[in-house]
């Protein structure tokens, strides 16, 4: 198996400059995305997931800025160094984003087929009319939509169908990396599963890798191969999904898993005590220390560095000693 990463993120930092101070929304995140894998990224609201998703594509807008780090795209180089023309060429073609709330950001006055044609035409202007029509039809079929959906406007479609259209647009040029930000958060369970299965089948068909951003632990358990957990702008744990759920190492990951309600047992709804920090004033040392039940002497002063062992990366002073 070719294990060379398609995307390598090194020490990425994305900050927002606001009148109240600098919001360190992504603060030193590193990970790699392997060929064909589905990498899930979870974290509570405001932990920096969307900021990172946008920044990977250089689609972040001011007051956000890249404060450091690199994003190496296989065969291209550092995305952070590309000029506008370079960026235009890789977007959609190599790196595609299905943004958070994509189904609500479709152009309301444009037919679905024209929205699909737009992306294809800018990258492959050579296609004639018939070829284009055939491609649009094939792309709709790929996401499980009938050809006649192409003639419709977004308001004529259900939420699940709109999300499929967003996926069709994002994957129309068979990118090698798909970044999907909360692709199904607004959908009902049945439709959510159908749309996720569609995303999975499209991804497998074109052989892409996906970074799926979300906060539903159940969904991630079902869809991801590996999973990362973000807290206060940092990636605190990254592990194969099975290992993460059966043997979480970071105290935050453990509490997060314990607080997921299930159908297995009726019990008091657990929540993690305390509130996440504002990212202007991140606590010194480990950002989780004010809420961490295992905090000890170095935690409030020394930042735990990511430690790697057995395919798992954990940023906690207890790791790797804690290994059960």
């Amino acid at each position, binding site marked *: 198996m070719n294990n060379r990463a398609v995307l390598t993120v090194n020490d990425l930092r994305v900050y927002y400059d606001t009148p109240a101070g600098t919001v360190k929304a992504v603060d030193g995140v590193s990970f790699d995305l392997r060929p064909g894998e589905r990498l899930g990224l979870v974290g509570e*609201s405001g932990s920096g997931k969307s900021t990172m998703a946008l920044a990977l594509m250089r689609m972040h807008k001011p007051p956000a800025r890249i404060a450091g780090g690199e994003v190496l795209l296989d065969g291209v180089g550092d995305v952070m160094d590309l000029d506008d023309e370079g960026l235009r060429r890789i977007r959609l073609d190599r790196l595609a984003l299905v943004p958070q709330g994509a189904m609500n950001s479709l152009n309301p006055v444009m037919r679905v087929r024209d929205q699909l044609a737009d992306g294809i035409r800018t990258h492959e202007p050579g296609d004639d009319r018939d070829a284009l029509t055939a491609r649009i039809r094939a792309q709709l079929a790929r996401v499980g939509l009938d050809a006649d959906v192409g003639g419709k406007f977004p308001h004529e479609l259900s939420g699940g169908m709109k999300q499929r259209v967003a996926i069709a647009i994002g994957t129309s040029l068979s990118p090698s990396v798909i970044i999907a930000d909360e692709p199904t958060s607004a959908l*009902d*369970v049945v439709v959510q599963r159908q749309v996720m299965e569609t995303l999975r089948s499209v991804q497998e068909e074109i052989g892409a890798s996906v970074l799926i951003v979300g906060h539903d632990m159940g969904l991630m358990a079902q869809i991801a191969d590996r999973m990362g957990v973000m807290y206060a702008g940092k990636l605190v744990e990254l592990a194969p999904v099975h290992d993460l759920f059966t043997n979480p190492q970071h105290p935050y990951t453990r509490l997060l898993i314990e607080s997921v309600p299930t159908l297995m047992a009726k019990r008091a709804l*657990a929540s993690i005590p305390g509130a996440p920090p504002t990212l202007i004033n991140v606590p010194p040392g480990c950002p989780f220390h004010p809420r961490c039940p295992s905090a000890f002497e170095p935690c409030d002063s020394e930042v735990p560095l990511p430690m790697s062992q057995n395919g798992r990366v954990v940023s906690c002073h207890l790791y790797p000693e804690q290994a059960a």
Partner: protein
Amino acid sequence: MTAFLEMTNVSKVFSAGIIRRQHTVAVDDVTMTIDEQSPSILAVAGESGSGKTTLARLLLGVIPPSSGEVVYRGQSVDDLSREQRRTYLREIQPIFQDPFESYNPFYKVDHVLTVPAKKFDLAASREQTMRLIEEALDMVGLQPAETLGRFPHQLSGGQRQRVMVARAMLLRPRLIVADEPVSMVDASLRATILESIRRMKQDLGISVVYITHDLTTAYQIADNILVMYKGSVVEAGSVEQVIRDPKHPYTQLLVSSIPQPDPSLPWGAEGEIAGDPESMEVAATGCKFVDRCPVAFEPCSGQRPPLYHEHPSRAAACFQYDKSPALEGQNLDVVFEPQLTSQAAGGSGEPAAN
């Protein structure tokens, strides 16, 4: 003894289109009682468009039924006197999905608390009003000092939603109708808000209608559940029976679609019919679920299945259970726990245990 709130054969039909009128049966023949003596949490579940919000609006008296009756303390909601309507509007309080929409951005959050306090004369003095407000905020785990005096945008989504829960509690209602109260808040805050809703029942004896499309939280906080599909109740009963051992193929589909936080468990059901549920038409006759049902058989396209009482605390509207007696008058009360002694006495004989 008159019940607190009753729905008898309540339906709501919306008509749209001027030339070709289209009729949507948003709520189709619902009969149930919400009792005051034994407060409980009733979950109303179903996918988008199944009629959950319409049912809530009918309970709240925001819209009148097209047929059937909503009866408040023995009196049809349509015929309440001014004074009765005022009490009705205080005794049943809503909590909506989007905590932001319930606020006026130009007023401090205090506004949503002081206005109803005044409107319903809750307190004799300003000091007393403030004390009630602080008590209510306390109950939902908010610090009054850190909450009052702020504008809505200065609170997080979870805090805003908890203020709405506090507002509902402040009015000392008998029933709270919460329409997807946590679907817009983060998973980590969901537990806190649901806990405060559960405390309303436990500590204050308030009944709750909890509307959701999330069966997991329904299972965690509710006593009973009613599952809707295209306006009809397809299954109802105790959460233990309905969610742990669903009988209607639609409920089975919903339960198997919940992604479990365990990578070794399966996701989805065998033999599922593909297609986008939101855009599927409802058959004019027969079971509304027939186009999506993996086990449909001959009788299914002929008639609408009634609710069969196939377990003491569960009923399912599916012909697979036609050996069991149908619920008398489609009345759901007999399958809900705790059962009303008055109603159980007049029940339709021994339901077939399954």
